[in-house]
């Protein structure tokens, strides 16, 4: 039976969704473990290093595969911390998580190809097959063989249907953006305590607020009214996810690089091109033009949030940004 992050079971029937909500806690790091992990600074830095390793090793593979591998890593860390963060141990854990993810998701990949890929190394460390197998067995035991992870992706279709967008182009656009947000937010340690269904709901709300602000209130109501969702958890999770999405946009703007293909970036591009034609080669004018719409978007986002008050961090950042601009003048 194939495994798909959107359908941990092979076919998702309407009956199956309630069962996913019932068992999702068995397949995610638990809230208690999250608190425990946060108390161990060493493990947080180790996690960051491991995620980098996994992303680096699996960058040639499907990004969904590295998502699953990182999910295994998080559940492994939640179950037992790492007492000996030696470089070779970390690398072995990363390789084993990827190997297990490959087994769950692919039948087409020749295993030897994946093995060769994982063993190419700048560090010169190559593991014997048996060593990887022993680590795999250890991880399987820690995860209690619950390898069909239930992730936020498992719930996206359900919430989109709840918002009345099933089979509509608007639903597909929202799904794409929410998936992007879910991928990026996996690194964020603050999300550890939230259930996958809560993360899915929050990512969709964040995407809808960003892309379809006028419909946002009705989407919020549709999700809040669901008996499967704890409203307070969604509010808290939404704040964290919005931070992540905003940070993403800041880094895009500062680097002048579009990391996502969204209508906002399309507008930026058009505006910039238009401005360029009028003021050939004048750098200052371009800078001002670029910053202006972003500032407006940030302001609207903060004040328009239906899940709570302003985020002081964002407010301070905005002031600093404006101040810097005024100084230049």
């Amino acid at each position, binding site marked *: *039976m*194939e495994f798909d992050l959107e359908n941990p079971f092979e076919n998702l029937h309407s009956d199956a969704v309630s069962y996913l909500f019932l068992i999702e806690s068995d397949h995610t790091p638990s809230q208690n473990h999250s608190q425990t992990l946060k108390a161990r600074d060493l493990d947080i830095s180790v996690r960051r290093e491991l995620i980098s390793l996994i992303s680096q090793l699996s960058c040639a593979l499907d990004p969904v595969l590295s998502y699953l591998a990182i999910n295994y890593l998080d559940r492994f860390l939640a179950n037992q911390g790492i*007492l000996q963060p030696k470089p070779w141990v970390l690398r072995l854990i990363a390789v084993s998580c990827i190997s297990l993810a490959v*087994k769950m998701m692919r039948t087409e990949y020749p295993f030897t190809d994946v093995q060769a890929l994982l063993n190419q190394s700048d560090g010169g460390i190559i593991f014997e097959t048996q060593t990887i197998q022993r680590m*795999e067995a250890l991880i*399987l035991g820690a995860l209690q063989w619950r390898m*069909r992870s239930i992730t936020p992706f498992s719930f996206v279709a359900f919430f989109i249907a709840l918002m009345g967008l099933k089979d509509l182009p608007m639903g597909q656009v929202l799904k794409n953006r929410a998936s992007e947000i879910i991928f990026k937010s996996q690194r964020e340690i603050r999300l550890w305590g939230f259930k996958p269904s809560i993360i899915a709901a929050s990512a969709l709300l964040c995407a809808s607020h960003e892309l379809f602000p006028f419909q946002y209130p009705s989407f919020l109501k549709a999700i809040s009214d669901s008996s499967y969702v704890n409203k307070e958890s969604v509010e808290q999770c939404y704040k964290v996810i919005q931070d992540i999405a905003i940070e993403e946009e800041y880094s895009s703007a500062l680097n002048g690089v579009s990391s996502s293909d969204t209508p906002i970036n399309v507008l930026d591009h058009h505006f910039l091109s238009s401005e360029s034609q009028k003021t050939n080669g004048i750098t200052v004018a371009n800078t001002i033009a670029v910053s202006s719409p972003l500032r407006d978007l940030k302001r609207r986002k903060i004040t328009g949030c239906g899940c709570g008050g302003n985020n002081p961090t964002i407010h301070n950042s905005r002031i600093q940004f404006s101040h810097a601009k005024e100084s230049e003048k």
Partner: protein
Amino acid sequence: MEKTGVLSAKEAFEKLEKVGEGTYGKVYRAREKATGKIVALKKTRLHEDEEGVPPTTLREVSILRMLSRDPHVVRLMDVKQGQNKEGKTVLYLVFEYMDTDLKKFIRSFRQSGETIPPHIIKVILSICPSIFNIRFFFVHLFLSIWLQSLMYQLCKGVAFCHGHGILHRDLKPHNLLMDRKTMMLKIADLGLARAFTVPIKKYTHEILTLWYRAPEVLLGATHYSMAVDMWSVGCIFAELVTKQALFPGDSELQQLLHIFRLLGTPNEDVWPGVSKLMNWHEYPQWNPQSLSTAVPSLDELGLDLLSQMLKYEPSKRISAKKAMEHVYFDDLDKRHL
């Protein structure tokens, strides 16, 4: 890495007795030392190569772990990986223990002698109850009362699996575990057929027990549907009533002939596409017989449900969910099922 608090299967469990030798390995009744709890341990050799744990094992065991909360599926409580004396990897699946299975249950009633139809029992009981041997009488009364309950639970468990996109493929009385005290029935061995078979085998033809195998499987259909399980459910239903297998073939051809003798040899009219199936041949032409000739003591509603489970065309066969809604179960008290 330091292992803390993780016991191997041998350290964690005390084997009490071997209770079976399944297709995939030995089954033991065992006690968990830490809790004193009685469990069923299934010990299985992993077919390893350079890959370590095979992907199919990983995927199917994970399914069982996901299904562990439904009351009608035998719960896989834990999985332990260990090594045997030759250093080969062994997997111990720790299941909840059930004291009997439907096969043993049916056999225990077969020894009670001939069946008396439930409706006749009711009539005679109302007239002159003292005439009958009490033990004999209550054995049959007991069975007729529980028939509906057991069948409903079976349909419910299968509906749960199918609702999650999972086929069993090997439903038979031996795979339906029971608790004698509560009369609860649970489906066992889900997915194990694929989890532990050597991949090169054609498991579809070598594992599924013949007697409960759907005709489309016997005729070599390559695309299965949930209907293959409902055929098995129908065969089990009939066997619960008569206490004999409905279609006891001893080869694939004989299995087909058993089916055709009762239901009539299929043709393109009753089963469009049947003559194009890979294993189709010319067969003796039989006309369909009434199901009541094979299951004489089942009432009209039961016969209707059974006939819908035994439709030739897979897409016309009743689903497990629809079966639960059939009028045959209307007078069953479902509150605890």
